[in-house]
């Protein structure tokens, strides 16, 4: 994962609520076994609608509960491959939010009013270290879990971080080993 700190530039506006991951990345593209190249399929059906306008900017600004539905990480992969480095919305679905942080796509939560202001401003500067979004001359703070922030800022590999706790993990497995169920013992 690439480290991320400041994202700035023009914003792309998708002023809809409850955008589900089936829209972001439709099912026919989930058959691929690769992790890259999903940007071309982003919002595949919606992109055919008259008036659709989603320029390849660094920041996507959108409505509440963005990324609801399926857990498919193909949705964040597509957004990132398309060119977005950060998203600004009033709220996100839980799994989608987590998936974004795992690939270094910064999901920023702002109150609805301020999201509208960022949409209107047309460009923004997001500073992860300072936890601020600046748009239209106004700067507002945002919240983020401090451990998630540390990993994003440093571009850390989650598995590498967890394996630093290998002793605790081994001790847990020894001390609290479950009797079962053991999947490798099942009938084939």
């Amino acid at each position, binding site marked *: 994962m690439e480290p991320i700190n400041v994202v700035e530039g023009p914003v792309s506006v998708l002023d*809809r*609520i*409850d955008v*589900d991951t*089936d*829209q972001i990345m*439709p*099912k*026919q593209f*989930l*058959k*691929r*076994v*690769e*992790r890259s190249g999903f940007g071309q399929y982003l919002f595949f*059906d919606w992109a055919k609608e008259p008036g659709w306008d989603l320029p390849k900017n660094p920041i996507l600004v959108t*409505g*509440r*509960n963005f990324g*609801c*539905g*399926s*857990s*498919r*990480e*193909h949705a*964040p992969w597509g957004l990132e491959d398309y060119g977005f480095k950060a998203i600004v919305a009033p*709220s*996100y*679905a*839980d*799994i989608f939010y*987590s*998936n974004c942080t*795992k*690939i270094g796509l910064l999901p920023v939560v702002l109150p609805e009013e301020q999201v509208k202001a960022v949409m209107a401003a047309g460009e923004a500067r997001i500073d992860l270290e300072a936890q601020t979004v600046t748009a239209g001359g106004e700067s507002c703070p945002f919240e983020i*879990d401090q*451990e998630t922030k540390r990993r994003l800022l440093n571009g850390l590999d*989650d*598995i590498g*971080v*967890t*394996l630093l*706790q290998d002793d*605790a*993990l081994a001790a*847990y*497995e020894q001390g*609290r080993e*479950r*009797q*079962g*169920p*053991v*999947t*490798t*013992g*099942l*009938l*084939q």
Partner: protein
Amino acid sequence: MPKTLFDKIWEAHEVAEGLLYIDLHLVHEVTSPQAFESLRLAGRKVRRPDRTLATADHNVPTDGSTSLPMVSDPLSRKQIATLEQNCEEFGVPVYSIGSARQGIVHVIGPEIGVTQPGMTIVCGDSHTSTHGAFGALAFGIGTSEVEHVLATQTLQQRKPKSMRIRYEGELGPGVTAKDLILGTIGRMGVDGGVGYVIEYAGPAIEALSMEGRMTVCNMTIEGGGRAGMIAPDETTFEWVRGREAAPEDFDAAVAGWRELYTEDGAEFDREIVIDASEISPQVSWGTNPAMVTDVTSAVPEPAGEGDARALEYMGLEAGTPIEEIRLDRVFIGSCTNARIGDLREAAEVIRGHKVASTVNAMVVPGSAQVKAQAESEGLDEVFRAAGFDWRSAGCSMCLGMNPDTLDPGERCASTSNRNFEGRQGRGGRTHLVSPRMAAAAAIEGRFVDIRNWS
């Protein structure tokens, strides 16, 4: 301090602060290939193949194909082949196409008995919440987290908030678990559960079969909830008893499971009370699962943001009675409603009737074992005699990754879980209902109130 069911399971699985141990990792072909590939590139192994179980479900054709060469879509074939190769290379047990154990991942876990009370269970699939019906903490994860669990058998997690939904009263005749959860999501909204692990409680929940409880927990994600759970009781223990993966010392296990309940006075971040007796059979009218209403009602006037767009997509006019909505397709299947109990309920409704001439109806059992069980009970004959297409197990038209899809404009009564735009096929129009309601709709060619229908 009194603890909730969720607190107890969480605390028993904390390896360190923010690091949660995973007892069972379920894997399928769509969200795992990139995870295995990353493991390979990093030279990492699967830490606990004995706590990992894979199956092919999303892509499998339901036409009776029993081996890979029979899968005609080359991309689907490649994805299933990749799963088989990855499982072989990393030592993960897999029930692939043609196996007598193959099926929708959330159907086969409970069926084999690897889903048990008190466990932490994850899968790269949002409907993993299904397994919470057993008093387990179960939730969906993305592919990066799949890789993390494969490598470490843990997840980095902050403890979510807790919510209890308590149902007073009992469900009326003909009203099912599906109606209960659709009615709940309709009241809470599609994001009402975001950030919460939800415990369902009350007499209406205790009265449900395990199939019904799985239906409720399955759709927790449709209200935004991280996980849904129900405290285990005799119904739960009886389900697990005798299954292949059930604990050898079953009585000792049950003694432990009896500790899995929310103690009196335990605090939740949010509590909701719903009168179950007020819930009618539900039909969704829009493009998310909160856009739902009573079968006796009418398509509502657009009120919220997105409603007008949803009505346009669905080709519906406000004020149209739900019972006047005519259907082209009926789909009985999915991880929400394709267990043997669901098929029995639907078969009971259609026995002796014929599917309307204007309707194309299909049944897709949730697993190869459900299919075999249904056939041993003669349910396949009941469905066939009525004019239903009797298929093989898989996710099928819940999301249409296999050849089972709606054509543009087709309207479908579906026992699945999502009515998003294009979910069952581009331009397709999905109405979410219970298996009984779907069965009756297939006969009449339109929605009917199952309580008055005979």
